[in-house]
């Protein structure tokens, strides 16, 4: 570290993004039974950035998120959260508690719990066993739940079982779960699948409003949606970065056009 680094010590719980980037993926490789799903992938996400990741089916987008969140271990490579947190050494809950939240491609909510309980469970805070036995919702937490329900438009579904929600509502609920988790880095896998045009616009608004204070990585197939939110787009293909730049750059890139037309 450079001189005087101690003066810039991150506050507790904050990832050390003193070198601009919050996420470092370097030289990652993953193979499933010999098939290379991730192939020498190198990618940096800046602190406060909103990055879109696109790519054809099977490009390795979800697998990349699996690596970041500890679900899949790479065969080789590095993955760092800020300067100090080696993601490859942490378990899934440790990564979550370090401040990385994730929304899954297939919406996964706790089906037999109510909408509000889903938020309660996802909320940031002490997650130990003995603490949970005695935990009560504080006024502050209750307020956060109410505010979040308002944001995701599910206030009227407070007591409803999450399993009974529509596909789009489950998407929203999962986004809400992500919000109450208060992560520094949000990984959002295909958030608008199954949403109406209006809902898509609200999602776009929400995600852009999060950027700045948070870093957001969005994987999405819907190009209009990507265009509406992205400054910077990364194209993944066969497990590595094919192109990176603004939406226009990327869409005019010859290799990208080939990949998408060849589909």
């Amino acid at each position, binding site marked *: 570290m450079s001189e005087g680094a101690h003066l810039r010590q991150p506050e507790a719980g904050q990832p050390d993004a003193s070198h601009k980037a919050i996420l470092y993926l370097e030289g990652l490789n993953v193979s499933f039974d010999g098939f290379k799903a991730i192939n020498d992938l190198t990618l940096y996400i800046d602190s406060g950035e909103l990055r879109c990741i696109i790519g054809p089916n099977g490009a390795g987008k979800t697998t990349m998120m699996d690596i970041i969140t500890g679900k899949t271990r790479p065969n080789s490579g590095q993955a760092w959260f800020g300067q100090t947190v080696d993601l490859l050494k942490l378990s899934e809950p440790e990564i979550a508690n370090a401040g990385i939240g994730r929304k899954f491609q297939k919406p996964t909510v706790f089906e037999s719990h109510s909408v509000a309980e889903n938020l309660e469970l996802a909320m940031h805070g002490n*997650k130990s066993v003995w603490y949970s036995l005695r935990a009560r919702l504080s006024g502050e937490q209750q307020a956060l739940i109410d505010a979040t329900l308002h944001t995701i438009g599910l206030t009227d579904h407070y007591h409803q079982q999450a399993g009974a929600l529509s596909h789009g509502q489950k998407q929203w609920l999962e986004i809400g779960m992500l919000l109450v988790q208060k992560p520094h880095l949000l990984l959002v896998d295909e958030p608008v699948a199954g949403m109406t045009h209006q809902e898509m616009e609200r999602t776009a608004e929400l995600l852009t409003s999060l950027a700045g204070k948070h870093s957001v990585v969005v994987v999405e197939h819907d190009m209009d949606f990507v265009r509406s939110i992205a400054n910077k787009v990364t194209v993944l293909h066969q497990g590595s970065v094919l192109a990176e730049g603004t939406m226009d750059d990327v869409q005019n890139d010859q290799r990208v056009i080939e990949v998408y037309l060849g589909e």
Partner: protein
Amino acid sequence: MFITRILQNDRGGQIMLAVLALVLVLVPVLNLLVPEGNFLHMPTYLVTLLGKYLTYALLAVAVDLVWGYLGILSLGHGAFFALGGYAMGMYLMRQIGDRGVYGNANLPDFMVFLNWKELPWFWQGFDMFWFAMLMVLLVPGLLAFVFGWLAFRSRVTGVYLSIITQALTYALLLAFFRNEMGFGGNNGLTDFKDILGFSLQSDNTRMTLFVLSGLALAGGYLLCRYIINSKLGRIVVAIRDAESRTRFVGYRVEHYKVWVFTVSAMLAGVAGALYVPQVGIINPGEFSPLNSIEIVIWVAIGGRATLYGAVLGAILVNYAKTVFTGLMPESWIFMLGALFVLVTLYLPQGLAGLVQQFQAKGWLQRRAAA
């Protein structure tokens, strides 16, 4: 009040505990106050039989906690029950003192028979009631903790976990069969005389044990309901429904599993400890893998993830077992199997589910009539 708050949304539990309270009052009256010969008199053997059912019910509640709510199909809970039973049995053996066949005040009969000269280290302290009671909780608890820690940390789940719980109880069965283990081998521990100085043959002692079994069931039930109502309970159900999702919101799933598994094992141990003085014997047969499977069947028949269903299932199935093994001893196991198949096919929510269905129907009819 604390208890009413725990039972707030638990209709089945309220009814079950009310019936239990009634039974705990009525049975002593019918047994001790109504004179023998009167047709209302309840013979003591029946009291003890009921007491045995109550310990089974507590065991079933313990299994429902891990299976119904945490989603772990334990086919080894009989082992925790038996260990609790052995801890109690060891105390009762020491209580015999010099009244055994060999009249040896320092050694239980079977040790004299084996030509042992002194009490093995792991029998030390069991002459003290409080120590034995501590072991009733600690031994099953510790085994569950170590077993759970190893199994859940390596993320063994589903059928594989069920199989290793069967292996666990089977291994203990084989171990306890060996005379060298020092637990009475094949014969187990028996010929008990008294507990805390009270004769186990007396009506009063038997009644006390019956009432204690009922109180233990009520206490165990309330404890489990309290756990399930807490945030911890909601996390446990989340683990059952979407284990990996629970990890991604930051919960250490294996800690939760080990905790619940250990609590459940301790409850099973308490049930075993109350069972042994009432039936008068504990032997390695209690570790039989089949026993553990039977417990799961009680819970399935009563209705999973309701707690009171487990109580209902344990008592009804064991009552049926008492009746049918009296009539045709060989056919019971087939009947139990058939019952299990029928329930899984036609009553996936068990008897508790059936009750809930009727309630829902009645409600609809009343609404339609209105």
